[in-house]
């Protein structure tokens, strides 16, 4: 079903203008045609009445001297004078036919009942005119004319044709004008829509639109800008809160961790030792979350600094795999490539953070006993690290979003803890290393990739940046 609401404003504007102009032109042309046809009819009636008057005047003597032949002869001249007259008749004062004329090939003549009217139309085809013959203030007879309105049909046909063509021209012109005019309104609307979409996608709330004019669209833009301002403000407050909170949480947590670690060393007696170990585990988990929050806060405020040094990525990979394996006993992390002491420029600690994050994610999202495969591939310019799991995978439509701040995959995340900050931090770290991070779906589970420029290309990119 066709819905007006489904049409874009741009097309609505065009449609509106075209429709309006067509209606207006239609009415104007209609009125013109009707007036034209009516004035043609009136002119025809007038001229035919005049002709009847002339015929009447000229036949006075014929009637008076009872000479129908003379009258007939005069009527016969109508053939040349007024070819549209198909029948003409003169009656005497008693209403008896005195003389008549019929155009060749014309049908039979019927004297119409005019009921005292000077003329009447038989449809649009014929006109009947009657005019009394007056001599010395005395009606001595009548003249009847039957006129074929062939010209009227032609005029009508021509006018309708012309009106149709003009209407088409008007349609085309109004469409073109509408096309030009609509852009003034719709362009600005579309610009706003585009800006809103962009904000929705990127989450960059600091972009404002130029305010032009004072119309409703300008008001809309103003409202949009104000909204952006408010979002920016609340965003800022949130970031500040995260920064302060994570900072304030970290200080006592460090102290708690220190004491719990000490307790862990001192306490050997079961089951106290087990409780301390559990506490330590959870403190570590809490510390990671607080650290994540702190990192995010740093990223937001631009305080995250990389400590770039040259290091052996193969070593780091092995170390990280061992560390991750320690956390999850049920999973088997396997390295597919052969270590060959590849050297990389970067922040070793941060790259380790990325690797740990990706590995822990791989473990988290592949419940049960599954293996995780770590692989690397060296190209001319960069090193690509692949971490493959055989877990639940990432739906295609969510693959762009999972690197966003506080984003948690829908449905499955309920059972899995975390703030949804890990991948956001990973992306930021990798971006700062001039690398890329992305995810691909495999037949089972997913593959997370990140690329790091090799030593020489990293330095060139750094100098470019």
């Amino acid at each position: 079903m066709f819905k007006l609401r489904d049409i874009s404003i741009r097309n609505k504007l065009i449609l509106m203008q075209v429709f309006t102009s067509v209606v207006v032109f239609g009415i104007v042309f209609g009125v013109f045609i009707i007036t034209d046809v009516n004035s043609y009819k009136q002119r025809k009636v007038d001229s035919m009445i005049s002709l009847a008057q002339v015929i009447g005047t000229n036949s006075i003597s014929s009637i008076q001297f009872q000479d129908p032949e003379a009258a007939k002869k005069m009527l016969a001249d109508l053939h040349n004078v007024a070819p549209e007259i198909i029948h003409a008749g003169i009656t005497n004062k008693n209403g008896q036919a005195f003389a008549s004329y019929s155009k060749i090939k014309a049908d039979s003549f019927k004297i119409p009942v005019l009921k005292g009217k000077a003329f009447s139309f038989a449809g649009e085809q014929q006109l009947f005119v009657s005019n009394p013959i007056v001599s010395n203030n005395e009606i001595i007879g009548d003249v009847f004319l039957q006129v074929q309105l062939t010209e009227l049909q032609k005029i009508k046909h021509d006018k309708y044709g012309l009106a149709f063509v003009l209407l088409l021209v008007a349609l085309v012109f109004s469409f073109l004008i509408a096309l030009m005019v609509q852009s003034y309104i719709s362009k600005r609307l579309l610009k706003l829509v585009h800006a809103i979409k962009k904000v929705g996608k990127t989450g960059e709330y600091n972009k404002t639109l130029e305010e032009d004019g004072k119309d409703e669209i300008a008001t809309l833009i103003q409202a949009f800008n104000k909204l952006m301002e408010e979002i920016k403000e609340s965003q800022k407050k949130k970031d500040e809160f995260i920064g302060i909170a994570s900072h304030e949480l970290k200080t006592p947590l460090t102290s708690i961790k220190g004491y719990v670690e000490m307790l862990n060393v001192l306490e050997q007696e079961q089951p106290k030792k087990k409780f301390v170990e559990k506490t330590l585990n959870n403190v570590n988990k809490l510390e990671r979350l607080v650290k994540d929050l702190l990192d995010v806060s740093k990223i937001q405020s631009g305080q995250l600094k990389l400590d770039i040094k040259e290091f052996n990525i193969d070593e780091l990979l092995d170390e990280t795999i061992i560390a991750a394996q320690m956390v999850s006993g049920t999973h088997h992390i396997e390295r597919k490539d052969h270590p060959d002491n590849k050297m990389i420029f970067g922040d070793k600690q941060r790259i380790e953070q990325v690797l740990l994050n990706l590995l822990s994610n791989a473990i988290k999202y592949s419940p049960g006993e599954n293996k995780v495969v770590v692989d690397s591939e060296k190209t001319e310019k960069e090193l690509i690290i692949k971490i493959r799991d055989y877990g639940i995978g990432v739906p295609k439509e969510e693959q762009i979003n999972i690197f966003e701040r506080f984003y948690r995959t829908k449905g499955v995340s309920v059972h899995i803890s975390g703030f949804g900050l890990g991948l956001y931090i990973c992306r930021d770290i990798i971006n700062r290393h001039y690398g890329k991070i992305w995810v691909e779906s495999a037949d089972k589970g997913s593959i997370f990739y990140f690329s790091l420029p090799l030593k020489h290309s990293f330095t060139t990119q750094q100098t470019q940046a």
Partner: protein
Amino acid sequence: MLFKRFLLVVLASFLAGAITAQNAEQEANLKAAFIYNFTKYIDWGNYDHGSDFVIGIIGDSPVTESLNEIASQNTVDNKRIAIKTIDNASEIKDCDILFIPKKSRFSLNYLLRKARPGVLTISEEAGFAKKGTAFNFVIINNRLKFEANLKAISSAGLKAGSQLLKLAIIVD
């Protein structure tokens, strides 16, 4: 239906207009009407005789009765119509129209001499128009027609309207 009626009307009117020799009364009526109708197309100019419009008829004629009837109902130029039977040629000078019936007592030449300018002469004898009367009634195809002698009309100082002359048989 209407057409048939019209045809019937046409035929009837033709019959009505036809003059039969037997119907003398009808002929006289028609002639009287013609004479009266002539007055509508003739311009007497300055020849204005008096308070009455006088139509003179030489001797007795059936036309007289018909003319009397017309005269009782009509006027010419707002003047009363007076119908005069003329027995004496001297009376001719007072007439505006002089009707010369068939078998008149006077010879045509005599009458034409008496009829001074300003008198419209009308006759009903074959060839009279040629001999000098302004109008002369003839019957052609059972229809009453009239001949006109333009010379006679102009020499009488009168003017005849073109609407009248177009119906006349011009003889001179």
